[in-house]
């Protein structure tokens, strides 16, 4: 995005905060999926194509995440929003790689910030141990509101940091065309590796692998025909 004006940045900040909240806290409606977060961010930044290209790329990485139990994983939502802000207005062949680099760093930062919020929640609960042991419903309500607020703050801060970084990169990083294209190809190759890894892990070696291979066949036929 060539110009980070308040009219564009404020809606992106709001969207990034909502997307950050959606991942774990509320409402888990899947607006935090990169393909959704990306296309909406693209519309807000005035470049839906960039939103789709970056959203699908991060979706390939996100497919490699299985958020079971207490596993630690990157947060791709606010990262996608910031990456789209950076890539909007640039031909995707040239902007995708650099946007992906920024987004992947932010996704890792987002994963770390989730741990911070979880520890923060635990401290808040420890402070209310007596009230919880006394069965005070009010304490449960306030702990819940506090947890959601902390997560919203996390999403907001992450998106803000991402947009500041995107603005800095726009102003200071200049890549020649071959390097920018090579960056894009590395990003696409890495995303495909993540998606393939996820698909093979999910299918195992039993009969489910046959379904995966059948799907691959159908995909290849469709890719040739379209």
């Amino acid at each position, binding site marked *: 995005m060539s110009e980070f004006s308040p009219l564009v940045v404020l809606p992106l900040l709001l969207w990034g905060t909502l997307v950050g909240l959606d991942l774990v806290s509320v409402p888990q409606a899947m607006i935090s999926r990169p393909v959704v977060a990306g296309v909406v961010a693209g519309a807000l930044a005035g470049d839906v194509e960039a939103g789709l290209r970056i959203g699908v790329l991060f979706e390939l990485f996100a497919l490699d995440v299985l958020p079971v139990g*207490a596993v630690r994983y990157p947060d791709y939502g606010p990262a996608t929003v910031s990456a789209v802000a950076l890539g909007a207005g640039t031909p995707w062949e040239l902007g995708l790689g650099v946007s992906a680099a920024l987004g992947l760093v932010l996704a890792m930062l987002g994963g770390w910030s989730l741990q911070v919020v979880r520890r923060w929640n635990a401290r808040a609960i420890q402070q209310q141990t007596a009230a919880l042991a006394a*069965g005070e419903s009010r304490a449960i309500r306030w702990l819940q509101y506090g947890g959601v607020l902390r997560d919203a703050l996390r999403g907001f801060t992450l998106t803000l940091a991402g947009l500041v970084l995107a603005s800095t990169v726009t102003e200071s990083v200049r890549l020649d065309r071959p390097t920018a294209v090579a960056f894009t190809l590395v990003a696409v*190759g*890495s995303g495909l590796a993540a998606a393939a890894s996820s*698909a093979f892990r999910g299918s195992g070696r039993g009969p489910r692998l046959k379904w995966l291979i059948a799907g691959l066949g159908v995909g290849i036929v469709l890719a040739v025909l379209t």
Partner: protein
Amino acid sequence: MNQRVRALFRLFAIQGTWNYERMLGVGMGYAAEPLLEDLKAVDPVRHGEAVVRSAEFFNCHPNLAGLALGATVRAEYEGVPGPQIVRLRTALCSPLGSMGDQLFWAGLVPALVGLTVIGVVLGAGWWAIAGFLLVYNGIRIWTGYWSLRTGMASGMRVGAAIGSSWLPKAMEWITPTAGFVLGATVPLVVAWYLDGFGWAAAVGAAGVAVAGFALTRWFGPGLTSVRFALLAMVLLLLFRRIGL
């Protein structure tokens, strides 16, 4: 608003206070509050004990938490001894977590996301995104409603109710479906991104993909796909700097 509807809405925020000590515990307590309101008038002491139990340690898949919530609330109203309710909660953690993870995180979500990506790649754009959100949230809201209703209806017999429900059958076919869809997604995405770059670029991207697939599987959690991508980009910058 109806108590069950309030509890259902609160279930959508069940992970709001997720932490490593009580995990979903406080979120469960928050969702249980409307359902336990009537117990306060009947038996205030029992209500206090029920509130304490409702916010203790608990963990399972958020979309199936309604089963545990409904079952324990019904048990509280039926006067089941407290330690037995705690045992029920503990016993439900693993199966509800495992079934929900397999059904949603390893099955439905990858399948629907794969279909959405295929839709985007084939030019459906916003329609694909809207379809994904509508279908996923429709299934999720219905599952939440069904879970709460089934839990409330079965109480301490919730295990048998789960065993005879649609859940085990759905788990059998959802992961192969996800595998099929993901298999179809990958070639279409490859064509979408690499069309127009030429053969040399396609071979380069394929090389990165094969190296990434092999190395991330070889090194396991130590080298995630994100770390591999960033490492590959740093190496690319270094190679460009030395003129390769």
